[in-house]
């Protein structure tokens, strides 16, 4: 018997020591320990959830269907470029409902067929007649875009966040088309949102300055009246053209107006051919973004500028014109600049986004939870205070009511908490506010097992049994109650961990762990103390 007491005591102490080692990194003592400590012993403690340390929690949905729409648009303009290079004149390309309507002089049928076969294996001909073709994506290509665009968006967002510089960001795919982004400690959530949520599709589109509509165009319109304006002209607009707006800010009054332009629908060049984007400072200290094309982009840019000297080229980002300079001469070397009314920070963020690339499709914000650091630390403080008071109240009650045995029960509770937090640290769990609530609740419930045992022992004592027997009988009879009641609560916790999300999960993890540890301390830890006392001298009385 004595040997088994020693064994159990040693196990208990060993567990406690391990728990404390795992706990240390989460406490303030850790920073005072020598440097070698972290190399030998655990260095990662409990990490705090965003609700406690502050930060941003985003769930984004990638509009994957739009990715297919975008891809077919891009495919159409690449096709146009390819055919023009082969000197197919008099081309017309239109995209509706994911179908490319291509018409060309019928004597070029062979060239078109060749080009399609060689360079566009992903397109399939749906219908054709002399000089006309209707093309669509192959089913496999469409599915590839649908499945990869979320991953592609994830990569792009990760690149942007990395460039932005956030400590320990979490970016992961969730379900088919959702992306979870967690940015701890962000202090400017609006800026972060701009960086992450922007599609950043950069296009260069030629202005149509010969449209008869322009005679009726006002120089600028009020911000917010764009849709009204579009409705006014939509019937008279050429089908190859579209109206886009340039944002103008009056530097003195800060008033914002929009200036409408007519541009060709098909982009002359897209931003995916960029190799770099940097902030530069121009005249009057105004920042702009200078971009460098890759080889292919540079060649295309040279061709376009050569062919369209004296025309205006609009630089379009996500459907908004940033500037529309007139092409003075052929531009070689593959450099261009985006100017507009930026602050320095806006310009540098734009450069980041352009470097990281465009999202394959727009993203929709499903959930955006931002907690400021002050609220977080406030919650931690209140969590500690209420936890501390909870413990004091329970300790006072137990010691007054059960005396020495109450003290034992309270010690068990303390062991419980150490083991629980140690377990959380071992699992590298994230502690959230509901998690703290779970811990506090398990403080309350930890006592229950001990109360059950102590009440049973009291009953046995009242029935006149000697102390030693009363203790054994008390433990034995209380066992089934403790076991069944804890298992049922454990089942609830497991159900919540399995199906719950967010706060429910955080709560369930601590509660579930708390209960499991409860069972252990109630049935092993306190019993070993009673057995030990009983082994040293015959217990005649028990303070209970």
């Amino acid at each position: 018997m004595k040997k088994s007491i020693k064994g159990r005591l040693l196990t208990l102490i060993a567990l406690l020591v391990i728990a404390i080692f795992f706990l240390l990194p989460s406490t303030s003592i850790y920073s005072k320990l020598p440097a070698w400590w972290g190399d030998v012993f655990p260095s990662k403690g409990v990490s705090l959830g965003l609700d406690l340390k502050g930060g941003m929690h985003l769930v984004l949905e990638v509009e994957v269907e739009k990715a297919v729409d975008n891809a077919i648009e891009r495919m159409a303009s690449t096709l146009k470029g390819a055919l023009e290079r082969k000197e197919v004149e008099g081309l017309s390309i239109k995209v509706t409902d994911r179908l490319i309507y291509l018409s060309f002089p019928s004597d070029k049928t062979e060239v078109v067929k060749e080009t399609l076969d060689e360079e566009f294996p992903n397109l399939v001909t749906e219908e054709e007649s002399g000089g006309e073709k209707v093309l669509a994506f192959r089913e496999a290509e469409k599915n590839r875009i649908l499945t990869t665009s979320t991953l592609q968006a994830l990569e792009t967002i990760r690149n942007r966040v990395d460039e932005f510089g956030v400590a320990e960001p979490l970016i992961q795919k969730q379900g088919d088309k959702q992306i979870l982004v967690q940015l701890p400690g962000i202090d400017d959530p609006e800026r972060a949102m701009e960086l992450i949520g922007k599609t950043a599709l950069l296009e260069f589109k030629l202005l149509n300055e010969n449209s008869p509509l322009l005679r009726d165009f006002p120089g600028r319109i009020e911000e917010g009246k764009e849709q009204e304006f579009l409705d006014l002209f939509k019937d008279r607009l050429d089908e190859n053209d579209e109206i886009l707006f340039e944002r103008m800010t009056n530097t003195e009054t800060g008033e914002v107006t929009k200036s409408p332009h007519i541009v060709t629908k098909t982009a002359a060049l897209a931003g995916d051919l960029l190799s770099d984007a940097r902030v530069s400072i121009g005249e009057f200290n105004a920042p702009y973004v200078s971009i460098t094309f890759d080889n292919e982009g540079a060649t295309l840019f040279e061709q376009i500028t050569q062919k369209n000297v004296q025309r205006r080229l609009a630089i379009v980002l996500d459907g908004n014109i940033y500037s529309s300079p007139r092409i003075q001469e052929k531009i070689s070397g593959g450099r261009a600049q985006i100017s507009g009314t930026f602050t320095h920070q806006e310009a540098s963020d734009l450069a980041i986004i352009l470097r990281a690339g465009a999202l394959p499709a727009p993203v929709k914000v499903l959930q955006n939870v931002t907690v400021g650091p002050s609220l977080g630390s406030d919650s931690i403080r209140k969590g500690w205070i209420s936890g501390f008071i909870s413990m004091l109240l329970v300790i006072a009650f137990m010691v007054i009511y059960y005396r020495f045995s109450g003290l034992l029960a309270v010690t068990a509770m303390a062991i419980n908490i150490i083991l629980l937090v140690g377990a959380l640290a071992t699992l590298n769990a994230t502690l959230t506010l509901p998690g703290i609530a779970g811990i506090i609740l398990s403080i309350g419930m930890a006592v229950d097992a001990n109360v059950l045992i102590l009440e049973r022992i009291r009953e046995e004592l009242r029935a006149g049994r000697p102390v030693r027997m009363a203790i054994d009988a008390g433990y034995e009879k209380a066992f089934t109650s403790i076991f069944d009641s804890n298992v049922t609560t454990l089942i609830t916790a497991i159900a919540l961990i399995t199906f719950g999300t967010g706060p429910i999960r955080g709560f369930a993890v601590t509660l579930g762990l708390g209960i499991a540890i409860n069972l252990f301390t109630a049935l092993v830890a306190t019993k070993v103390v009673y057995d030990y006392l009983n082994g040293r001298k015959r217990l005649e009385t028990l303070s209970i």
Partner: protein
Amino acid sequence: MFTIIKKTDIDFIGKRKQFFMISLIFVAIGLIALVQISRGSGNLGIDFSGGAALQLKFDQPIEINAARKALESGGLKNATLQEISSDNKLIIRLKKREISGENIRGKVKDIFSTAFSGNNFIVESSTEIGPTIGKKLQGDAINAIIFSLVLIITYIAFRFEFRFGIAAAIATFHDVFVVLGFFFLMDKEISLLLVTALLTVAGYSLNDTVVVFDRIRENLKSRKKETFGEVINRSINDNLSRTVITSMTTFLAVVALFLFGGEVIHDFALAVLLGVVVGTYSSWFIASSLLVTWQQKRIEIKTKKRVLKKAS
């Protein structure tokens, strides 16, 4: 020995019909609440309905009506405002239809920095939730409840008897509905955190019920001469001091959370406090009493069958 409750002999099941009636009324309120909530009325939190919530902390006290006016003239009508005056905090909640596709955080910041330019503030937290997430969270919560319920009934049926499982499940539902009904009547927010609280209540209530059932199981074996009702009464009385003390310690622990835990956890703690009281009540007057009613019905049916057999 210091005792609060001496050896007792209270008749818990004698007045069960009256208690059933009282409970029925409370459960009915809870059921109405559930129907109303699933129809989308009631004070649904934005995590279920979709929408936005912002918590602002001002340097100086802020007049809630002035804040409402400022929001209205800024185009945000129908905002629900809640003031935590001790900390100069203001919580603004907006339902989803008010905010489609806007940068709500920026807008609210603009409104307040123009309307209360002398009173600096920070946005302590902001939450925006799209309606699809709300639907998913709702689905998750319902799945969690159904899944845990089935498992628990199975476990109790396996460890005890089938009728114990059913009685425990009914008592648990009772507690959850009573708390839900209370929150609905008080027009408190029905949020994901409340669902967590309700599940805690369910866990606690079950825990309590199982402890009583365990004693019943034990006494049924050792007190074969007594009637079923007597055994049940005896078991509840045997366990009385434990139940009271456990409820008290849990109550004490949660009271601290309620008083000092801060605004985020406040309603959570309130629900659990209520649940502890109701859970204790239901283990005595609902779960155990149901077993007695069940037993009586079973005997009645048996005798009826016997009479029928004899008659034929």
